């Protein structure tokens, strides 16, 4: 049954693929299946050339550019939607929606797979990749130039004191080398505490630390990710551990999670904001 369904879908895609292979230098019907490509497409293209973006891009909890996504059609990343919308370019992440990507590749629908950007170098690569694919290289360079201007400013005025920051999620996991958070924090001019943690406690790109170890590492500032509508989970401030309340009153900051989920030209703005918050707290810290 499942096989039959797939076969039918493949056949339908082949037929329709032939029908809508319109020869044009600039894709006019761009469909994005991934939150990060959504946010690039929304900045690179006029709305009439965007067929749909993923449903996450309209969620305040996940997307930074929700306002730009309002009014744009959304998709849930299914092959049926691709069939129905007949895009001339599909943008997808290189990790998500594997079955849809496999199907599109098999039937030859133009597909660009965009990896997640976890550093400013990767942000440049990814932005250029998407800009080239949609035929808006110039716009891509403008966005990157803005980003590089902010980065240059930040580099020229690095804070002299060493400020150690721990991004404490309340569940014992701290982003380490190789994560976008680490990159933004470094550019903001602070020291990520993950670099001081023994490598035996690093798994993947995260360090695992319990409260005892966190207290022993003595970071200057604790940073929490916050979504715009407030978190609905256990790392809520009211449920904060007494030790944290005792030691870190006035030395806690929050950062908007939506800005740290995808590597975008705006990540430079995130770094600038983070530096301002950190310096502010250090000035007033007890």
């Amino acid at each position, binding site marked *: 049954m499942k096989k039959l369904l797939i076969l039918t879908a493949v056949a339908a895609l082949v037929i329709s693929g032939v029908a809508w292979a319109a020869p044009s230098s600039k894709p006019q019907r761009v469909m994005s299946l991934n939150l990060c490509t959504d946010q690039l497409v929304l900045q690179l293209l006029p709305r009439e050339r965007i067929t749909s973006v993923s449903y996450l891009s309209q969620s305040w909890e996940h997307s930074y550019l929700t306002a730009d996504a309002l009014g744009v059609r959304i998709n849930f990343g299914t092959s049926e939607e691709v069939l129905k919308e007949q895009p001339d370019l599909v943008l997808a992440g290189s990790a998500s929606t594997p079955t849809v990507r496999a199907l599109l590749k098999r039937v030859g629908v133009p597909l660009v797979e965009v990896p997640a950007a976890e550093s400013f170098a990767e942000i440049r690569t990814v932005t250029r990749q998407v800009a080239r694919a949609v035929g808006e290289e110039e716009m891509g360079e403008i966005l990157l130039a803005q980003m590089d201007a902010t980065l240059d400013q930040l580099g020229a005025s690095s804070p002299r004191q060493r400020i150690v920051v721990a991004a404490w999620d309340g569940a*014992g996991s701290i982003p380490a080398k190789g994560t976008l958070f680490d990159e933004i924090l470094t550019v903001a001019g602070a020291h990520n505490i993950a670099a001081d943690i023994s490598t035996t406690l690093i*798994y993947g790109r995260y360090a695992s630390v319990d*409260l*005892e170890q966190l207290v022993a590492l003595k970071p200057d500032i604790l940073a929490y990710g916050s979504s715009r509508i407030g978190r609905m*989970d256990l*790392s809520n401030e009211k*449920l904060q551990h007494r030790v944290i309340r005792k030691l870190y009153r006035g030395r806690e900051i929050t950062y908007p999670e939506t800005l740290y989920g995808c590597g975008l030209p705006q990540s430079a703005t995130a770094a600038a904001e983070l530096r301002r918050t950190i310096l502010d707290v250090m000035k007033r810290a007890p």
Partner: protein
Amino acid sequence: MTSAAEIESNASPGRVRSRDAVRSRLLLSVLTVLLMALTLVSLLSGRVWLRPSEVLSGLFSANSDFASLIVTELRMPRTVLAVAIGATLGMCGAVLQGLTRNPLAEPGLLGGSAGASFGAVIAIYFGIAAISSAAIPIFGLIGALAAMSLTFAIGRGGGTLALVLAGTAVNSFMAALISLALNLAPSVAAAFEITTWLLGSLADRSWDHVVLAGPFMLGGCALLAVTTRSLDALSLGETQAASLGVNIHRLRLIALVGTAMAVGAATSVTGAIGFIGLVGPHLVRPFVGYQPSRILLPAALAGAILMLGADITTRLISVGPEMKLGVFTALIGTPFFFWLVTRLPKTAP
């Protein structure tokens, strides 16, 4: 299992009872000493190494340096919670095994833990936990009460087998509801938080948790302690117990509410911790015989020892992320469960 004790006590009631009393007193003192020793070990163990002298001075000094903070605000509440929750689970297991006259009975089997988990997940999911920190234990309690009432209502009249089957069904239902909550979770982060919480852990708990859950656990255990005499009578069979003046319905109700209070509060602090309630009573039963009133206290102590021992082990195993307590007890407890099941044909009446 009751028949052996009956035959033994019928043979020479006086002698057996006094021998049992001596044995149970001996067992109680051994368990108490063991628990105290483990408590000391617990204060010494953690991912940060503190010298025994630092721990001692941290315990008794008034100034809040970093060592004393770790000892008094992190390791002490964690130890207290492990002991209290382990004891609670052990006691609940003993009472439920006596009540259902089934060696496999425990809060987890009868749906209590899953119900409490679901209640707590609801509190996290709808953000009620963010409004008041008392929401999680209260919702846990309501969930445990609802789930166990359902089990007792469905399984009523069909004997112990029906009760256990009803418990299995209620467990699956609660698991389905938790999956639904995960399915509809508002964000990946929320789903992740719920999943991690469900794995069960005592990491980074504070005195706030003791204050929140303690009263409910105490109240629940007090209710359970009231049932001992009736449970003894019940071990002779329902009709015999009724003829001795035991109100079975009232007994069931008290045991139900007591377990729900205790397990609901305990689960809301740790997440689901299985098998402590099952294993605790079985460990002490060979030493004190099969009389429920004699098992309650040793089972509570054994539960506390198991829980504290398991928690210390998870703290000392250091492989990247901390091994969750619930995962550890499940891994250790399941073989014991297998063993119980293979023994069942021999012991079942």
